[in-house]
């Protein structure tokens, strides 16, 4: 069956069975392999992408349920420049194996989009659906706080230039 999807600002048409989870459309059909498979049942967060501005688990939503909302994956997170969250991840050297980190970054960017200055409790609540088998949680927390401060600076910078 044909489905038209808006992924990372591009319209993609895919021919798959309607029950195919978004995760496997991304990975095996569109070759966007940044989004990862961890559990296939919505409990690990490795497959997190944005549907509209919400973080969702792409393993648990069939392609037929997506509607026409735009989808953003890790590959589409930053078009020209890196997102402050990516920069924070890099400067704090967050990943170990790195496998969970695309999902972590997608959850973190959604958090900061809705809550630009999260408390530690906000961070723990928003991020506890994302497992990290390597146990990099301490760094992830620090990186989100760092990104929040970067994002703030970037926004302030933009405003200053705009005015």
């Amino acid at each position: 069956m044909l489905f038209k999807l808006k992924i990372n600002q591009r319209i993609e048409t895919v021919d798959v069975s309607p029950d195919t989870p978004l995760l496997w459309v991304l990975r095996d059909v569109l070759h966007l392999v940044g989004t990862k498979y961890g559990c296939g049942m919505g409990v690990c967060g490795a497959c997190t992408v944005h549907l509209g501005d919400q973080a969702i688990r792409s393993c648990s939503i069939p392609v037929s349920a997506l509607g026409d909302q735009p989808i953003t994956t890790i590959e589409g997170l930053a078009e020209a420049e890196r997102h402050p969250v990516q920069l924070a991840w890099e400067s704090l050297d967050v990943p170990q194996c790195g496998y969970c980190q695309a999902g972590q970054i997608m959850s973190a960017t959604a958090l900061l989009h809705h809550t630009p200055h999260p408390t530690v409790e906000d961070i723990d609540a928003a991020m506890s659906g994302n497992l990290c088998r390597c146990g990099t949680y301490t760094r992830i927390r620090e990186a989100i706080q760092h990104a929040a401060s970067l994002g703030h600076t970037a926004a302030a910078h933009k405003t200053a230039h705009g005015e």
Partner: protein
Amino acid sequence: MRMNRRSFLQLATLAGGGMALRLYHLPTLDAQEKLPELTPQAFVHIAPDGITTIMARASESGQGMRNMLPMLIAEELDVDWKNVRVQQADLDESRYGRQFSGGSMNTPLGWDPMRRVGAAARQLLVATAAEQWNLPVSACTTAHGHVLHKATGRSASYGELASSAASRKAPPLDNVTLKDPSEYRIIGHSTQGVDIPAITTGKPLFGIDVELPGMLYASIQKAPVFAGKVKNANLDEIRKMPGIRHVFVIEGTIRPAAFTPWEPGIEPGIAIVADTWWQAQTARTQLKVDWDLGPAASQSSEGFRQRAKELLAEPPGNTVRTYGNVESSLHTAAKVVQATYEYPFIAHMTMEAQGATAHWKNGRMEMWSTSTQPENGRELVAQTLGIDKSAITTHMIRSGGSFGRRLQNDYLVEAAWIAKRVDAPVKLLWSREDDISHDGLRPGGTMGLMGGLDARGRLTHWRQHFITFGENHHLASGGGIGSDSYPAGFVPAYALYTSAQPLMLRTGALRAPGDNAYCWVAQSFLDEMAFAAGRDPLEFQLELLSNQRVPWTVGQPDAVGDHEPTGPSVLVPERFKGVLQLVAEKSGWATRKKQPGRGMGIAAWFCHLGYFAEVADVSVDKDNNVTVHNVWAAGDIGSQIINPRAAENMVQGGIMDGMSALGQEITLANGRIEQSNFHNHPILRMRQTPKIEVFWNRTHYPPTGLGEPSLPPVLPAVTNAIFAATGRRIRTLPLQRSGFNWA
């Protein structure tokens, strides 16, 4: 014989099927081991613009090997790290030496040769410049990727010199001059993980990301019971499903027996090859298979527990080590404490499930492997498929975690087996459920302990009867302990006995194998003994470490199962004490508050050549929910912390991993593993993460590895803290079996 038994990775036993995984040997290589002569040309390539490519020889699954080993080369080569590009080497041990990652051995085994490779490359560049300038080599120096002659102000970049330097004959590696550590500009300075930009932007990087033109996707349905065989299946129906290209029965080669070897063979099942993995998975749900489950279907956790109880009451099957006449003198102790400790099987649960990609073409096999023991993988593929080793090419791909799982190569052999029957590249991927039910599990175990104290409250006796799995002297992989593991040798009278029951199940090394269980047992029971003596556990242990040691004597077995000696033959008591004292100081141990519902626990361990002591600060609420608030860790891995920021991350990860293990359990009923995914074999989440502070005790010993040694002490540190908070001793894991839960 002893030298030989300790030799690094005895692959010779592979053919017999009973591979002893001797990863954890001493840092000096055995004299008789033949290693290829490493050359700087194999590892270093310098472009005319000075950009220096350094080959990373070891596999990468998150321990930072792609940084650590190249950093050693770059340091002695004397280039700026910003001009270094790291490239993963393909498998070629004749060129690169050992290419495996396990047992925290890359640092101790790479520290010397990798620096020498860098120094030899530097020496070639200096010789080239000196010749061009007609000056003595001794008059030239190097800095920032240049050869310099200070007196004349002459300077040549490595990029200019590289091509003629590369054609010179490299000096013997033991003949090069190494820097004084005070000159280090890279070692001891944090470098960013070389793959991090690719990770944060979602570039293809991991085993699961490998894509080749015309590639097909494979999934394997195996029996719900270990080594169960296919009698009948509706394969023709499956073949008609959308996207399905091939469906085969894998006969398999495993023979269920009381002792299951490290690589027991290929497991039977049904391979489904499709255009996409989802199609293969969908077809799997329609499979109707009549299985011949075989003898493993009779196994259950309840049965194991019953049998362990019986064995504990019987005379031990095997005496591993005794001294000090434990049996005849234990009754003379002023106080005797008896306890039984029990811990479960647990699974690896690497974040990336197992899998591999393989392509059979024109009589050659090309493999994209996440194995941390790739040469062993190549040998197994050659042996299983009956092809020549030289017809196999292995690309080493980053993996989403190993924790010991990828030391085994079962998934790689399966991918190659399928690829050989398919006229296209094939990517095999296990589902999470496959990954748990076909893991090489950390074996469970039971330990019957008796400890004795003298009238002054000193530890005098330690008698332990270890109930494990296997047959006679063939014990389940990944479940052994050192017969000289602490506190052996430090206790005046000691005995270690073993008894084993059959196990038809794959087991293997899980991060800090053996130690991840025995440290919990030993450091919990030491805490119990200190309490029985009315003494502080830290002071009790420092005194024990000051005892005159009972030496290990030649001829005594040095380990049980495939564990490596870790005790008095290699343990330095001053280092053990050093980390205990440091962690006590940093955690405020001496002035800790005692209050109901909140407590601190301390534990330390030596394994994989590293020393760690950890203190946990824990609270337990009225419903027995446990929160870990703080963990302080003190480590001694020698004179250098090569990549400090990554090292700290690794320690924090080891602590989280050890804490997760406290709540995990794999159980069997009718031979079936009952857990299936992260919801019923959980790993801890961010909201459960304590504040973790890491401290280093620098000593003058050569640097050693960090993948494993931070993990073991946190288990007893937490359970000892629960005791301090509640007065209830945890002798059975997981925590839930002792009436506690994570908050």
